[in-house]
C-alpha cells in the first residue's frame, strides 16, 4: 500500500526528514508517533504529494506518491484543514465526490448518507461548516477522506479535537476500514489511541525513525512479577523468553508459585525512554 524508502526533506531553516523508511500493508493500521517537529506531518504530506521530498522514493498503491494514480486511491485528512464555511456537510461531500469522479446522485446519495452515519453526523447533513464545532468538522473530514473507496488513509491528528465519544467513533471507523483491507497511517500524539488501534508503531524523532514494530513487541519484555508462598518476586528487565527459567529456578528452590505476571511497559514508557521531552529541549 505505502512504501517509502530513504525519504529526506529540508526546509529553509530545518531538516524535517533524514532518510525515513516506512511501510503500510493492506488492512494494517500503523501509528506514527513522535514529538512536535519530528517530521510526522511532513512525512504524511510527502505521501500525499503536498510536499516534494528532496530524496528517497515513496510509492502509494504501486504508483509514485502524489501522482494522479496514487491520489485516486488515497484518503487524506490534514492536521490543519478547512472546508468552505458556507457549504453544508453534504455539499462538502458532494464536492469531493465530484473531484474523485464519483456520482453525486443515486448511489452517490447513498454513499454520503452512509459516510455521515459512520462518523455520527447524520443529523448534520444540512449544517453549514462554519456553524460546526471543531470536533464535528473533524468527523466531517474523516468522512471526506473515506470518499471514493480509498485503498490508503493518511490521517494527520484525526482525533485532536474530539471528545472521548468522538475518539471512540473514529476508532470504530478505522477498525472497519482495516477490516475492509484499507491501510491506515495514523499520525497522532494520543498514545492511548495508538495502543488501542494500531497494529504497528513507527516512532520518529528529528526526522529519523527511532524504533518500529508491533505494539506488543515494543511494550513487552520489561520484567515479570511472580507471586510465591514466600511473597512477591520482582525481576526487572527480563524478556518473555527468560520467564520460564526464572519460574523453574524458584520451583527448584522449593517455592510454590501462585501467579506469574509479565510486566509490560506502555507506549508512553517507550516514548519517554526513546524521545524524552524534546519540546523543552528545542
Amino acid at each position, binding site marked *: 500500500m505505502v512504501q517509502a524508502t530513504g525519504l529526506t526533506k529540508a526546509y529553509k531553516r530545518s531538516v524535517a526528514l533524514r532518510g525515513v523508511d516506512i511501510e503500510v500493508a493492506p488492512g494494517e493500521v500503523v501509528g506514527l508517533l513522535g514529538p512536535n517537529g519530528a517530521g510526522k506531518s511532513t512525512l504524511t504530506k510527502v505521501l500525499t*504529494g503536498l*510536499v516534494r521530498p528532496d530524496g528517497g522514493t515513496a510509492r502509494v498503491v504501486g504508483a509514485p506518491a502524489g501522482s*494522479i494514480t496514487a491520489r*485516486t486511491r488515497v484518503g487524506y485528512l490534514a492536521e490543519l484543514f478547512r472546508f468552505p464555511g*458556507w*457549504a453544508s456537510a453534504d455539499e462538502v461531500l458532494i464536492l*469531493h465526490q*465530484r473531484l474523485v*469522479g464519483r456520482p453525486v446522485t443515486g448511489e452517490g446519495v447513498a454513499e454520503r448518507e452512509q459516510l455521515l452515519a459512520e462518523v455520527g453526523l447524520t443529523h448534520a447533513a444540512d449544517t453549514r461548516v462554519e456553524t460546526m464545532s471543531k470536533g464535528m468538522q473533524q468527523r466531517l473530514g474523516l468522512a*471526506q477522506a473515506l470518499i471514493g473507496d480509498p485503498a490508503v488513509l493518511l490521517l494527520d491528528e484525526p482525533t485532536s479535537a474530539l471528545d472521548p465519544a468522538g475518539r471512540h467513533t473514529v476508532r470504530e471507523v478505522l477498525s472497519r476500514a482495516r477490516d475492509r483491507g484499507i491501510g491506515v497511517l495514523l499520525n497522532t500524539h494520543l498514545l492511548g489511541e495508538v495502543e488501542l488501534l494500531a497494529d504497528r508503531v513507527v516512532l520518529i524523532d528529528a526526522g529519523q525513525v527511532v524504533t518500529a514494530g508491533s505494539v506488543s513487541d515494543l511494550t513487552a519484555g520489561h520484567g515479570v512479577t511472580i507471586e510465591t508462598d514466600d511473597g512477591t518476586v520482582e525481576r526487572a528487565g527480563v524478556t518473555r523468553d527468560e520467564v520460564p527459567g526464572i519460574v523453574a529456578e524458584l520451583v527448584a528452590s522449593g517455592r510454590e508459585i501462585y501467579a506469574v505476571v509479565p510486566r509490560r511497559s506502555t507506549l508512553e514508557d517507550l516514548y519517554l525512554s526513546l524521545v524524552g521531552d524534546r519540546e523543552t529541549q528545542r
Partner: protein
Amino acid sequence: MTEIFVIARLALQEAVRRRVLLVVAVLTLASAVLYFIGCLSLKHHVGGFLATQNIDPIVPATLLGLASFGTLFLGSVLSVFLTAGAVRGDADRGLVQPLVVRPVGRGAYLAGRALAALVISATYVLVVSIGATVMTRLFFAELPPAAWQAIPPLVLGVCVVTVVTLLVSCLLSTVATGISVLMAYGAGLVAGLLGEIGHTLGANTLSSIADGVSYALPFEAMYRDALNKLSPAGPLGQLVQLGPLGGARSGGIGLWIYSIGYMVACGALATWVFRKSDL
C-alpha cells in the same frame, strides 16, 4: 477538464453564497443611477453651450472615458478580491490541501480558479460597459465613432489583471497579493498618463517609461487602447487624451496578440510555481 469545472463551480458558488455577486450588483446599480443623473445633468447644463461651440462629441467621449476608468477599476478590484487568496492565502487557511490531494492537477486547480474569476470580472466589465454606452447614447445624439470598439480592450484588460493576480497569489499571502496588484494597477495608470503627457510634449523619456510599463502591465495598454477608441479626432481628442483618466494610445492587433500571450505565460508561470510549492 471536469475537475477544472468542479473547481470553477466551487469558486462561483462561494461568490454567490458569500453574497459577493449580490453586493456587486446592488452597488453597480447605484453607480448606474449616479451615471444616469450625471448624463442628465450634463445634457441640460452643458448642452446649450456645446451646441453653440459645435463640439458635441467631447461630452459623451469624456463620459465614456470616465465610465471606462470606473468600470475597469471596479472590475479589477472585483477580480483581485476573487483571486488574491486563491493559492497561498487559501493554502495558509488549509482550504487548498483537501482539494489538491484529490486527483486534480495543480494546473487544473489554477485553471478552475481563473475560469471563475474571469467569468465574473469579464462579464461585469462587459455588462457595465454596454450599459454605460447605451445610457450615454440615450442622452447624446453622437457617440465617439469607435465607442463600441472600446469595450473589448477593457474586457481583455480585466482578464490580464485576473491572471496577474492569480500568479502573484502563488507567491504572496492574500493581503500582500491584493496590495501589490492594486498598487501595480495604479502605477500603470499613472505611467500611462505621464506617457501621454510625454508624447504630447515630445518628452521621449516619459514616453519610453510608459511604453515599458505597457509591456510589463498590458492591462494598462488595453485601457489606453480603449481610451484611444473613445477619443474624438482632431484637437478635441487631445482634451480627452490628456484628461485625468490616463493616456490614450492605439494598440492594434499586436497588442491583443501580446496580451493573450502574456496571459498564457503568466498562467504557465503560475502553474510552475504552484507545482513546485510545498503545501
